[in-house]
């Protein structure tokens, strides 16, 4: 059975596409700035390398596929992929990690499937998940979020971390910290009470220390995109509402072992995923009802993987890829009726 796949960006011309993508980048700025505030130079090195590698690999693949370079490089799609990948991986990631991530995102997930508009999976999430599965040690090396962290780990430290890796000394080790979701996963696995875990230093006022503000930054950018009509409300709202609903049910059932809906909304990659990753027009569902099923499915899998998934504290990347696979089926069953078509 052959499903028709809708692809969004083919239908609009290139300058309009570039403008849309540029506005997505503007919307990423508040969250990114907050992330730089808490994680410092490492976020800048991630962004620089990921965007550099993504653009270079995109150019090489376009050359190999004998496609024109200019329109495809200036539509900002590779920049967004690199940018999202950079925000998903730990700050100060070594250069080769970013290179492999960008390779799988741009070459395998995007260009080998036919380039922009034809990729069934979100490229940035393919890159992220490949890294998560392949390099678990590097991918959990998160530094503790500290205020104005650019002052505490300097530019030269960044160069050392990125190009030679982290020295195996206690001073550096002390600067890394389990993320809030990690803490919960390990702690609850050991039957520790939730109330005790959330007193730990990785937790802040609303959710995870540092992370809560970064998430709110993404939320602001996301709301601005909805206001500017760059994305529709269907996916982010359904995703956040479903996640809140599921977590509220379990929280109401037993608040001593299940975190609050607020925590789930502001932890890990929920906000980034809801507004910037799940809404990717190419790999997401295209019909209004389809978007709602798609987003609800993502929320369901995020909760499932976060709470019961073995080994992985967050599930946004996996959830998005699983639902990407279901998109042709969802679109098939939710196609809007053509005007004048008879009711069956």
């Amino acid at each position: 059975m052959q499903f028709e796949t809708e692809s969004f960006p083919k239908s609009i011309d290139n300058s309009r596409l570039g403008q849309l993508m540029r506005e997505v980048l503007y919307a990423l700025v508040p969250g990114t700035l907050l992330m730089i505030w808490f994680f410092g130079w490492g976020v800048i090195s991630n962004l620089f390398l990921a965007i550099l590698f993504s653009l270079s690999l995109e150019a090489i693949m376009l050359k190999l596929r004998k496609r024109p370079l200019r329109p495809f490089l200036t539509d900002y799609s590779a920049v967004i992929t690199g940018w999202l990948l950079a925000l998903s991986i730990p700050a100060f990631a070594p250069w080769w990690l970013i290179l492999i991530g960008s390779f799988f995102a741009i070459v395998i997930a995007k260009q080998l499937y036919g380039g922009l508009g034809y990729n069934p999976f979100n490229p940035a999430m393919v890159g992220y998940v490949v890294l998560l599965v392949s390099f678990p040690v590097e991918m959990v090396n998160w530094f503790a979020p500290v205020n104005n962290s650019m002052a505490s780990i300097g530019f030269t430290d960044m160069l050392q971390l990125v190009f030679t890796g982290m020295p195996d000394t206690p001073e550096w080790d002390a600067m890394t910290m389990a993320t809030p979701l990690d803490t919960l996963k390990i702690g609850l696995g050991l039957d520790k009470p939730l109330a005790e875990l959330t007193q730990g230093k990785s937790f802040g006022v609303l959710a995870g220390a540092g992370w809560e503000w970064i998430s709110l930054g993404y939320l602001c950018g996301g709301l601005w995109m909805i206001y500017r009509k760059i994305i529709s409300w269907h996916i982010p709202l359904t995703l956040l509402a479903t996640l809140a609903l599921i977590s509220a049910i379990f929280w109401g059932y037993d608040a001593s072992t299940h975190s609050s809906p607020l925590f789930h909304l502001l932890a890990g990659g929920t906000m980034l995923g809801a507004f910037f990753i799940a809404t990717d027009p190419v790999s997401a569902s295209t019909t209004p009802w389809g978007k709602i099923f798609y987003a609800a499915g993502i929320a369901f899998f995020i909760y499932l993987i976060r709470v019961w998934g073995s080994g992985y504290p967050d599930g946004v990347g996996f959830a998005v890829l699983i639902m990407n696979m279901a998109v042709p089926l969802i679109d098939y069953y939710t196609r809007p009726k053509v005007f004048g078509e008879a009711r069956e």
Partner: protein
Amino acid sequence: MSQASYRKITQEGLWNNNPGLVQLLGLCPLMAVTTNVVNGLGLGLATILTLVASSTTISFARHFITPEIRLPVFVLIIAAVVTAIELLMHAFFFELYHILGIFIPLIVTNCIIIGRAEAFAAKHTPPKAFWDALMMGTGFALVLLILGGMREVLANGTLFDHAHLMFGESARGLAIHLFEDDKGFLLAALPPGAFIGLGLLLAIKNWIDAQQVQRRKAGKTATTATLPVTSVSTE
């Protein structure tokens, strides 16, 4: 059906109609065991042996097998051969036998073997059936070997590790360690690595074929088609 020449049979088995890359048969063991070269080689050799023994036997018996009952007879012959090979491996390559596990008895269900029995051995003389089985088996084993090599290098940074399981203690030195770090690319050893790796091999094969077609076209227009058209493979 015309009797194929040995040259043609060789080309078909190794390249044009390669079981792993063109017919896409036997993908289950192909992906499951190729986490390193030695596993790939072990299963590849077992498959060649099975294929050669069953195809030749079936070719000898082809005049006695009536079409109505041919499939049960093929299955019986193949099953007998696989059982013998399993017992042999159990006796002489015990550790490799354990690593390959269920995939040795599962050679019975490998579509390549019944496929060659039905499509070739039942219609050709024993020498040709033998050669076809050997070439098809070698083609399959080469894919196993290359995929196993790719995945072993990426995931562990080694080649021919555990070679002693197959060739005895003296082969321990065959193992090549390309990088000592435990920074291997874990995905390559996992199932997605097999799918991506095979996908890349298929792409490379098709790309080479496309290049050849283009070159032939270019050559043909240059010599204004004075050369006879080379035989086009018929499936």
